[in-house]
């Protein structure tokens, strides 16, 4: 069922003269390639996605959804409408923790954004803020898994893989799905039962010459000529075996992928090279900045990949898990990501790419309006916040969503949605919808059942569509 070996007899005949002379383009452009471009089911608003994943759970009470009631009650117990079946560690006192810094109306719409995110504030009129996003699990690993695959356990195809499966690769010379600096859980960019061609390629932006952007990319023999001679010898062996056994799609696939790998050695370093970008662009993102450099490079690379036609690019930025001393730690996480994320939107816009690129910024959940104190003895100013999947904030931009629009409202605590509630399944179905895919029709038969990203759930959030 998972086989993605394609018989390419004609290709082999055509190239019998020399494997080395083969272009990568030819290799992956075979008509039945799983990555061949597929037309969307209905007219699409977006052609590609960039997902900025804020791993750890950014604090929406501090950044986007402050509450007067919590501010008034700072340091005092509030009677939160919590689920009493759930264990509490360090939050059992339910002390209101006022928003740190100021959250002010921004742009023409008056979207509420914190001073901690000055760059994001400057793109308020470009983004659509969802304030009542809702997920099912309040622990990192299952919650992150649900954000990426729709389920909190098990192994299912990730969002990028579904999109790659649904639409194919826009650029046949590049993978259709790239994940920059992913978290350790490989399921977050895995293809599970979908063909492996749809799995995310992990990319690291090298911080030194010794690091390689993609695993096993550096020629181990350190001698390009010797390596090519070795590959040629292997391929001659492979060709002899193939002649002897007769057609074998699997062997043909293996022969191909060796050539693809060889070419990736040449093209991949180029791919992650941002030295050709203008100084102005680098500055826009914060390349070279003390706090911003890593994320700036990642976001700039995301734009580059996206521009080159990679269907789904993800950038992961960690450091948002503030269980303690959030007032000290949150500004640092903001400083590391704010400018790069906002720059990405500005850059896409100036290149005319924003209209058909859907950008999503989100953590796997948000944080509680009441404090968390694991020591039990710290003063309120040193407290942090616990995870909160009940409601959190996500923003989107481009790709046919309403700019300068705030959707969804939470209760007086900022705990449960009261309107505009968007479950992750709804978010997923909306993302697919913008790409021209129907989340109920995009299925794969596995173990006798048709699986979907959204399982049996999901409603397109029409209210946020432009």
């Amino acid at each position, binding site marked *: 069922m998972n086989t993605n070996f394609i018989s390419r007899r004609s290709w082999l005949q055509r190239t019998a003269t020399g494997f080395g002379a083969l272009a990568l383009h030819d290799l992956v452009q075979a008509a039945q390639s799983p990555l061949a471009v597929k037309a969307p089911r209905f007219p699409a608003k977006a052609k590609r996605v960039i997902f900025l994943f804020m791993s750890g759970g950014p604090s929406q009470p501090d950044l986007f959804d402050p509450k007067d009631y919590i501010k008034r009650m700072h340091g005092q117990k509030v009677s939160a409408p919590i689920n009493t079946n759930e264990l509490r560690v360090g939050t059992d006192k339910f002390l209101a923790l006022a928003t740190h810094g100021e959250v002010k109306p921004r742009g023409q719409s008056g979207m509420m954004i914190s001073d901690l995110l000055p760059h994001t504030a400057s793109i308020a009129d470009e983004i659509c803020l969802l304030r009542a996003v809702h997920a099912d699990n309040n622990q990192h690993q299952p919650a992150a*898994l649900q954000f990426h695959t729709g389920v909190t*356990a098990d192994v299912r195809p990730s969002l990028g893989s579904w999109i790659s499966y649904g639409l194919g690769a826009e650029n046949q010379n590049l993978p259709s799905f790239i994940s920059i600096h992913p978290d350790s859980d490989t399921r977050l960019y895995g293809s599970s039962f979908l063909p492996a061609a749809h799995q995310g390629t992990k990319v690291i932006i090298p911080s030194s010459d010794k690091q390689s952007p993609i695993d096993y990319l550096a020629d181990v023999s350190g001698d390009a000529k010797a390596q090519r001679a070795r590959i040629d010898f292997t391929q001659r062996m492979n060709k002899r075996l193939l002649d002897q056994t007769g057609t074998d799609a699997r062997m043909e696939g293996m022969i191909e992928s060796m050539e693809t790998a060889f070419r990736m050695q040449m093209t991949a370093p180029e791919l992650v090279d941002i030295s050709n970008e203008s100084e102005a662009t680098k500055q826009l993102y914060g390349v070279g900045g003390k706090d911003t450099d890593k994320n700036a490079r990642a976001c700039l690379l995301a734009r580059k990949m996206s521009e080159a036609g990679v269907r789904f690019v993800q950038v992961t930025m960690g450091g948002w898990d503030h269980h303690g001393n959030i007032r000290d730690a949150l500004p640092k996480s903001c400083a590391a990501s704010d400018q790069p994320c906002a720059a990405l939107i500005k850059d896409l816009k100036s290149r005319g790419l924003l209209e058909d690129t859907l950008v999503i910024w989100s953590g796997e959940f948000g944080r509680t309006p009441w404090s968390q104190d694991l020591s039990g003895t710290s003063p309120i100013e040193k407290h942090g916040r616990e995870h909160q999947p009940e409601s959190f904030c996500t923003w989107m931009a481009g790709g046919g969503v309403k700019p300068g629009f705030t959707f969804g409202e939470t209760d007086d605590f900022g705990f449960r949605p*009261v309107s505009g*509630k968007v479950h992750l399944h709804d978010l997923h179905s909306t993302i697919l919808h913008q790409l021209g895919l129907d989340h109920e029709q995009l299925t794969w038969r596995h173990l*006798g059942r048709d699986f979907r990203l959204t399982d049996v759930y999901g409603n397109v959030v029409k209210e946020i569509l432009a």
Partner: protein
Amino acid sequence: MAAAFLMNRVFQSVGIGMLALASARAGDDMAFFESKVLPLLQSRCYECHSHEKKIKGGLALDLKLGWQTGGDNGPAIVPGDVAKSHVIEAVRYTNPEMEMPPKGKMTAGEIEIFEKWVAMGAPDSRVKQTTAKSARVIDFEEGKKFWAFRPVSGEAAPAVQQTNWPLDLMDCFILDKLEANGLSPAPDADAYTWLRRVSLDLTGLPPTPDEMARFDASPASRAAAVDRLLQSSAFGERWARHWLDLTGYADQIGTSNSVFAEHAWRYRDYVINAFNSDKPFDRFIREQIAGDLLPAASPQERAANITATGFLVLGDVEIVAVDKLKMEHDLVDQQVSKIGTAFLGLTLGCARCHDHKFDPVAQTDYYAIAGMFRSTDATYKTENGVWSSVHKTELPETAGQKAGREQMLAVNDVKIRHWEVERDNSNKEKAALEPQIASATKETKPSLEKKRDELAARIKTLNGQIEHAKFFAPVAPKAFAVHDRENPADMRITIRGNPYALGDTVKRGALRVASWADFSKIPAGQSGRVQLADWIADARNPLTARVTVNRIWQKLFGEGLVRSVDYFGVRGETPSHPELLDYLAARFMENGWSQKQLIRALVLSRAYRMSSSQNATAEAKDPDNRLLWRMNRQRLDAEAIRDSMLAISGKLTPSSGGPALPLEFPENVNSLSPKAVNPPAFAFKKMRPVQDFERTIYLPVIRTATQPGSAKLRDVFDFTQPAQIAGKRAETAVPTQALFLLNSDTVRARATELAKQLGDSEANIGARLEALWLRILSRPITSSEREDAVKFLETMPAEKAWIELSHALLSSNEFLLRL
């Protein structure tokens, strides 16, 4: 007859009278419904609950019958009872699990309309009937007619024309189908190919040059080779891994925070031993499901029985959930699903929330089995934050083991005391330095400060070592295992999997469609796992033996007789050779569920001898080789690739099992304090050097991250994700694999080692080439290959050329495939 007729008339007239009296009010009610309620239903509910759009959760609200029957949660409205009507609960937003409409609460006025409507008895004027969605009622007797649920029949071997071809009765089934379709079996593979094939299939290792030299392809020689392979410990080391793919095994508990499963290896070793000792498969089933409840003749047997139940708790068990009741229910679901897939080839998890959509498995069947696991303890809440852990059971020891352990404990205590003394002295010394530093001169100060800092660093190291030594002090051996709860009981259905929304109680039992008699009585005070295991391991169970022999067939022939090896349900694949499947299942059970005997027979069959070469005529008729006119080629799995490379380069180091995680290095462990918010976890800073040379099955399996050390190869070559239960691995050809073959240190190191060894042992180029081919490809070099290789060697300096040549062969398809 007449009386009955009369009575009817009386009732009818009474009925008519009541109707007339009520009709005036009814008219008002209907008007209220039509003017107030219906528009609300249409605007707020129909989008997801109507026949025109969707029927989510099985609930349709465009018909009176819809809310009367209700959806997955049962009737949506109880006329007159606002408190008991789900619709009211939903629109009031009082239950976070069920808030309707999902996108936002209705206004107070709108909610009031619904409340009023239900209170007045939910008058509904809609009379339209629909046939669109009538509830599916599972007919179990009808279900039993499906091939997988029919009893296993002892099929006789069919008569064949080419009578000199079959070597074993099973060959007749294959040949019969081929003859009936005008096909003939492929010729036998040559002796080298066969020996490499059987060696890789049974042990995951290629034959050695010595073994090849001794082999003459005679029937006796083949049988001797197979017996040698089956008796080698390498057999269990390969086949145990096939089983572990069905358990979600990892040396990690759950997936969050790298929590180490320091006892998991005992289960892995148990499985290896089970295969090596050819433990009867029915016994293997019973021990894994209910080993803790089985009698045992010795402490060793008791320990093995307990360890076997690790099957139930070594999957991707969630231990960090904040809702413990929900967490426990989710684990029960995993256990039921795993048993369904591994032993029965069914997707039982589907029936947690509703009757199975395709298979004759009712929701009540699910809860009949789930009740046994709800009556079993598998996890407990720890002292760490919101964390739970998997239950551990102390294992009985022999007197000798106990004495040895106590001696080790004494040594450990001495070590700790020694470190404590040194630490305390260092502390004193450091304290004494402080006043000296305070009053020191500019000249003496730096050296004193340096000394103090050195002491501080040493104290830190010592504290880490002491904490580590205390944490890992030799104690009685333990295994991750389960035991019955104090008050085992039948379980209530959880509505849509919500453990707080309970439905009917379901008597513990098994799947009705696969049952031949009433379920055995469960003794009071027991979970019922023993009876479930007995039911699964019964010769009359239609699924167990079929699923098991099919798995074995798939490992040897590349594809199962039923290709969907984990799913025998109605949407699965049908068997290509149903009679053969039944014949093998019956034979397997007659031979005491011996896996080794079955494997021996299969690999000595004529079918297994066939060449894997293509044949244009046969391919045109049967391109997928469904009828098995040739052998299927297989790509080596990750373990076989790594282990073969080690064996070929003479570096494979035997292991007798034991802990996979190198937790003995303090730097590999963190968060050991019992009161820490997060539980003890591992960090891979350092591996045992020997681990790079041991068989892959002995390396740590990590669920979330990339695999440590040389186990990394597993990530690249389609290792089953250790959260997944899958009998057949995906097989992909992605560039990452080729990059790994081209550029990884792992492959390069093997090539270098091999080149060095050949250089040391064979002076002559011809002999060296011969040896290289024999070792890597398990066959002699051909003359054209020799020519090509000699030319290749001339293009670069000898030492380098031999490394490159070895490397070229280790990345060749012939090495990576088993033909």
